[in-house]
Every structure is written in C-alpha cells, then in structure tokens.
C-alpha cells in the first residue's frame, strides 16, 4: 500500500435542502468546501456536485437522508415478500405484528411462516421446509419487488436464511433483491425481521442511488472508490452497502456527529445542531448508539441508531461529563462554534473509517477465548470486504451486554480500517446491486 497522506477524499452529505461538499486530504486538511442547493433528484444533484470535483480524488464518501425520508414519507415503497423460517415454534406472533396499517399498505406484503428452527446452540429443532419456501416464492412471482427472509437465531446460525435466499433467487430470478435478517441486525427475531422487511422495501431505491453514482462517475471520468456512511458513521463500499439500506438511514446524522468531533479535535463530545433539533454523542471517537429497540415509521426494529437522532430532546448533561460541547449549527448560543461547521458531515465522511459489526453470544466456558478470536477474525474479514485496507484493519471496540437469566453475554464486535482504493478496472463495473448481502 502506498503512503496515502496526499490522497484526496471527497465527502458529500445530502441533508435537508443542502449538499455539503468537502474535499479533504487523508491527513485531514480541508482543501475546499461548498454548500450546494439540493433538489429532489439524487442523480442530478450528485452530477452537479461531481462537476466541482477534481478528477484525481481517490475516494468519494456519500451520506444521504433520502432513504430515511422515503421510509417516513414515500407513498409507495417496494413490494416485499416476507418469509419467516420459524414454524412451528414462532407461529404465535405473525409477521408484521403491531405494524401500522398505513405502513403495511405501502409495502403490499406477501408473507408466510414455514417450518424450520434451531435452538440457542444452533442445533436443529425443526427441519427447514424448503418445499414450502419454494411454493411461497412461486406465489410471489410478479407480486413483489424485493424479498426479506428471517429465521430463528439467524445471527448465530444463518444457514436456513442462506438456503431460502438461494431458492428465492432461483424462483424469482437472480436480479431480485434478497435481504437476509442476519445481515441487517442482531438478536431478537421480530425486531430483526422488521428491520429486514423495512430494508428490503428500500432496496430498489438504494439500487437507484448506486446506479446514479456509477453513471455519474463514468460521465465525469472519475476513477474513485465510493463508500456510503452507515448508521454508526463508519463506511461501507457502496455496492455492498446498498444491499442493506436500513443500515444507512442515519448515516448523514452520524457523519455530522463524527465530523464535528474531528473539527473540534475531541473524541468525546455532545454535538448539537440547529436549534438543538438534532444532536448526538461522540465517545472515544465513535458515535454513541442506542441500546434500546428503535422505532422507524411506526415499526420496531433492532438496528442501532445514533443516540439523539430520534424526535426528542438532546441529552444535555453528557456534555459536562465528557467535557466538550460542540455545535454544527450555523449559529449556536449554547455551544462552542466550530469553523467549517456547516460541512461537518461531509468532512466527517471524508475521514471516516470503514467499519463492520457483528453480534455474538458468548458463554464463559473453556472455549470462550477461542470463539471470541474466531468472531474477531470474522469481523475483520467483513471490514475488508466492506472496503477497509487489510493492513490497517483492527478490532476497534467490543461492547458486552450481560443476558439476564443466563451466564451468557451478547457481544457486539466492531472492526474498522482505513478506506482502500481498488482500481475500477479491477472490478466488474456496473453490476446491478441485486446482491444478497454477505456481511453483518
């Protein structure tokens, strides 16, 4: 790997009615920043933004609030086939339980629970009824735009979901976007299933974004790696990221929190924004995420979102504890004003690490250490697939939550590394993003 101190990254944050544009060297120097007006058309906005970009940029980091807005406001989302492999044990709670009717109507779902379950050790309790799954997908032909698949304990035993995904692609065609629940979130079947369905409902829109990006790059002759910001502010290479759009909802908010910390030169901070309407917390250089279930468009899910991005008052008091209070508002009376605060998100994007996260249930027995190392290795590989430079990837944090009535712990392991540039000539360009997501 070459020394990258002189490489140029472009951060583009599509937020509200503006596009933040920040051209940044990998050593952190802000070369150029702009605020561009934003329209409803992502493709033309991006095109306009890239017109202002020098051709030698090596990486473009993009975050946008349009997926989040679509989930809240779009009259129609993709039509989703939702298959749960969970009979006979999970049949007491139907798919889409407690969803608001209006949201259900927007995704015109076709749903079914078929037999198949494993226990907490991954041992099979009921075999997967593949024939029933195949019949279900046959019923969905011509009725759906995307597929969501969930199964019991999928984060530790994803095999049933993978087999069902293969069936879906065979029956519905290999361009059908398939979302497996274990690729979007951790433990808790119903919440993870909800997240997978919501994510599936956004996949065509996310695919459109990717097509617009690919098209714009070709148009402008820019050969750069493109990354999208995830909910925790870390990046994933775009063609992988669009497979799980639910993990991109708050990417622009997270990038703003991360960027504000960088601009202020602090790793722990309370970040406030216009009129304190939005805020977040940076702790040890990472955006603090919710530990409780999150609600999106009236549905509950377990995709972690940055603390404070909900429609709620910001958590004031953490600032006094963490020592810094920085604002990315244009004007703020309560916080230290930052220079370049108006492009904090774009600046944060340009300098954010690539990240990958996995959830593991760990038991304090003789092989715990071994299993933990295995899981760490897996997350590191996921980060590399997500576009991190293998030479720089490392486990950045492990969050442990004890599980009540159990000696086990749930671990969230995150690996981060510097974004890596892969020459576009080395890749299959313009492959449509019908991928089954392969990472957590």
């Amino acid at each position: 790997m070459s020394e990258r101190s002189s490489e140029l990254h472009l951060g583009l944050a599509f937020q509200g009615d503006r596009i933040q544009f920040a051209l940044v060297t990998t050593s952190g120097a802000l070369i150029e920043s702009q605020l561009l007006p934003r329209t409803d058309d992502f493709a033309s906005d991006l095109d306009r933004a890239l017109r202002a970009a020098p051709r030698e940029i090596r990486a473009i980091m993009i975050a946008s609030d349009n997926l989040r807005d679509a989930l809240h406001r779009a009259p129609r989302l993709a039509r989703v086939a939702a298959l749960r492999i969970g009979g006979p044990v999970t049949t007491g709670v139907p798919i889409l339980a407690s969803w608001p009717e209006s949201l259900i109507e927007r995704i015109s779902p076709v749903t079914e629970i078929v037999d198949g379950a494993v226990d907490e050790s991954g041992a099979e309790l009921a075999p997967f009824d593949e024939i029933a799954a195949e019949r279900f997908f046959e019923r969905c032909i011509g009725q759906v735009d995307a597929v969501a698949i969930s199964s019991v304990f999928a984060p530790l035993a994803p095999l049933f979901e993978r087999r069902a995904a293969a069936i879906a692609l065979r029956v519905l065609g290999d361009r059908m976007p398939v979302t497996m629940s274990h690729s979007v979130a951790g433990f808790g079947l119903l919440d993870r299933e909800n997240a997978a369905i919501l994510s599936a409902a956004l996949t065509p829109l996310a695919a459109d974004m990717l097509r617009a990006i690919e098209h714009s790059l070709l148009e402008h002759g820019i050969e750069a790696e493109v990354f999208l910001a995830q909910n925790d502010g870390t990046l994933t290479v775009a063609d992988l990221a669009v497979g799980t759009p639910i993990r991109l909802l708050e990417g622009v908010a997270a990038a703003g929190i991360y960027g504000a910390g960088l601009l202020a030169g602090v790793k722990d901070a309370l970040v406030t924004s216009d009129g304190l309407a939005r805020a977040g917390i940076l702790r040890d250089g990472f955006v603090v995420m919710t530990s409780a279930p999150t609600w999106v468009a009236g549905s509950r899910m377990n995709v972690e979102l940055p603390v404070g991005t909900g429609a709620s008052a910001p958590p004031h008091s953490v600032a006094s504890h963490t020592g810094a209070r920085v604002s990315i508002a244009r004007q703020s009376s309560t916080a230290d004003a930052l220079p370049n605060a108006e492009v904090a998100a774009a600046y944060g994007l340009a300098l954010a690490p690539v990240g990958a996260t996995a959830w593991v249930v760990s038991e304090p027995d003789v092989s715990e250490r071994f299993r933990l190392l295995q899981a760490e290795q897996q997350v590191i590989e996921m980060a590399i697939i997500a576009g991190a430079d293998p030479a720089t990837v490392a486990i950045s944090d492990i969050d442990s939550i004890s599980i009540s009535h159990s000696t086990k712990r749930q671990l969230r392991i995150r690996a981060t590394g510097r974004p890596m540039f892969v020459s576009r000539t080395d890749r299959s360009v313009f492959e449509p993003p019908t991928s089954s997501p392969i990472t957590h």
Partner: protein
Amino acid sequence: MQFTHEDIAPMAVGAAVLGAGGGGDSYLSEGMLTETIKAHGPIEILPVDAIAPEAPVLPVALVGAPHVVNEMLVGRPMLETILAHSTSGQGAPSAVIALEMAGLNALVPLIAAGQFGLPVVDADFTGRGVPSLGMTSFLLDDHYPAHQVLADPVGRSVRLTGSSDFPVETLLRPLVTVMGSLTAYTMYPLHGADLRKQSLDGTITRCLEVGRVFQNLPGHTADEVDTMLAAIDGVRVASGSVVERLAQPEPHASRVSVTLEDEDHPDRLTRIDLKDEFHLVTRDGELLATVPDLIVVVDNDTWIPLTVEQVGVGQQVTVFALPAHPRWRTDRGVQLLGPRAFGYSTDYVPFELREVRS
C-alpha cells in the same frame, strides 16, 4: 370483566412497569395477544371469589432467558403440552392464572386462556418481576402444589413430582437450560381454595391501572407526572442521563450498576444496581428505593419502561418507585425478596419514607 383489544396496550405497558426491569419484553406478547383476541374474541377476567373452591386452575408462565424468547417467540405446542399435563393431573382447568404478573408472563396467560377458551383469574403469585419462579407467594407460605411441569417449544416436557421441599430455582434452572432456555411452566394441583389463601388478588386490574397511568405520562410536566403517579402510589425518585454502565467481572458478570447524571445537579450522581431486575437506587450514599418495591426506569424519549439490558450510556431516563404487594413488605417478604436476599448489605426501607428530591 372482559379483556378486549383496547386493554392490550395498557396491559403491556403495565406489565413492563411491573417487570421492574425484568420479565422480558412484553412487546412480543402484545402481537400474540392481538392475534389471539382477533381469532377468539375477548377474554373473560374473573375475580378470585368467582372460582369455585374445588375448581382446578391452570397457572401459566414462561421460564427461560429473554434472549431465547426473543428469538423463539411463543408457539402453541408448549402451551398445549402444559394444558395436557394439568388436565390429566387434576381434571380440565376452569381458568388460567398468571404466576408472575410482569413482562411477558403477565400476557402469556391471557394468550393461553384465549387459545384454550378459558377465563383468566384477576390475580397472580408475585405482583412484580422476580428473578426466579421460586420467589412467589408459595414461598411466603412455604407451600407448593405437588407437581411442576416444564415444556419446551416443540412440546417435549419434564414433570417433577413431590418437589415442594426442593429449592425450585436450583432444581428448575439447569433443566430449563438443557431444554433450550425457553419453557412453558405450570404446577398442579391448584384449586380455587388455594387461590383464596395464596394468590395476590386483583393484580390484572392493578397492571391495567398502572399501564394506563404510564401510557398517559408523555407530554406532562414533572408536577403533573407526580400527581398522576400518586394515584397508583408511585413516586419519581431520580432522572438524568446514563453516563456509565459498569458490569462486574466474572463470576458476577450479570451484576451491573448504572450511573445517572442529573443535569440540574451535576455534582450528585444517582446509581442503580441491577441484575435481572432493578434492585437499588442510591444518590450520594442515600438509599432512595430498594427491592421488593418496584424500581422502574423509563426512556425519556419514548416513556417506555426499559428492561435491565436496555439501559445504555447516553440515554436520558427517569426512575420511578412503586410499592410491592403488601405481602412482600412483611418481614418474611423482605427476607425473601429484599436487598439482603440479593446480596446487598443494606436493610429495606419503604421508598415513601425517604425524602424525595427531584
């Protein structure tokens, strides 16, 4: 009283409050109960007095680990298995009763009753979330039904007989783990006459009442909240942001303390000690509330009561205390479910005897 669709949401909120951080996530069972009532209609709730002394009753609870319930949900096979055991042991039950009026376990008996076409008794044996089904009013009386049954999600079961002298938790917990950490549980024989002596009366009514109050808290000022809570004998004991969550190392890994910083009093830190439920709230060394009273932590954004796993750094929370059932506030009750029973070197003091500062 008929339990209808309109009662589901307050029941679930009440169940989360009475869980005092434990009892699992009642959101799951809300969906199940909605489906049950859609399919089978409203569920009849009967007072203890309405159950004939000789009529057999089916107590229902889930025993297991919340993370397994969250994956496996609750299917019919395990409920049908415990019904079959109960019926063959003591005859067809005339009603279902909750063992633990908290979290999932407050709602699952309603689901079972709806599916079986039986009424539910307005009572239970704990009145709050407990870490073990050994900690029921059966323990207060030292008198248990002779048989206990555990059934796993695919209907395999284990029956323990003559187990009244066994320490229930010690006996059952390893079995539950072997059975995959999710089981439906019942005990028999249990009749109307036993309920009159041993059950805690009126706890479904209490759960609904508490749920309705908590449902209405959002959007009110602190003073209004205090007034609304007074109607259910509750008080607000602390509020602030979670600035630390500290888990003790093995072998006490699941003992955790959480520190809150109050923006109005940044110099005064509030600490919550917890394990499977919230146990103690202290501020500057002063004890604000302890088990067996109920300590309830809500997220200020949503006003949803949080389980012990859900309280994380960065959240803004408010902490409430509610009185435990009077039988838990007796000397015997405190001995079994008070701070010392959980390993704290402090005596129980009812929270209402503390000076309340906000």
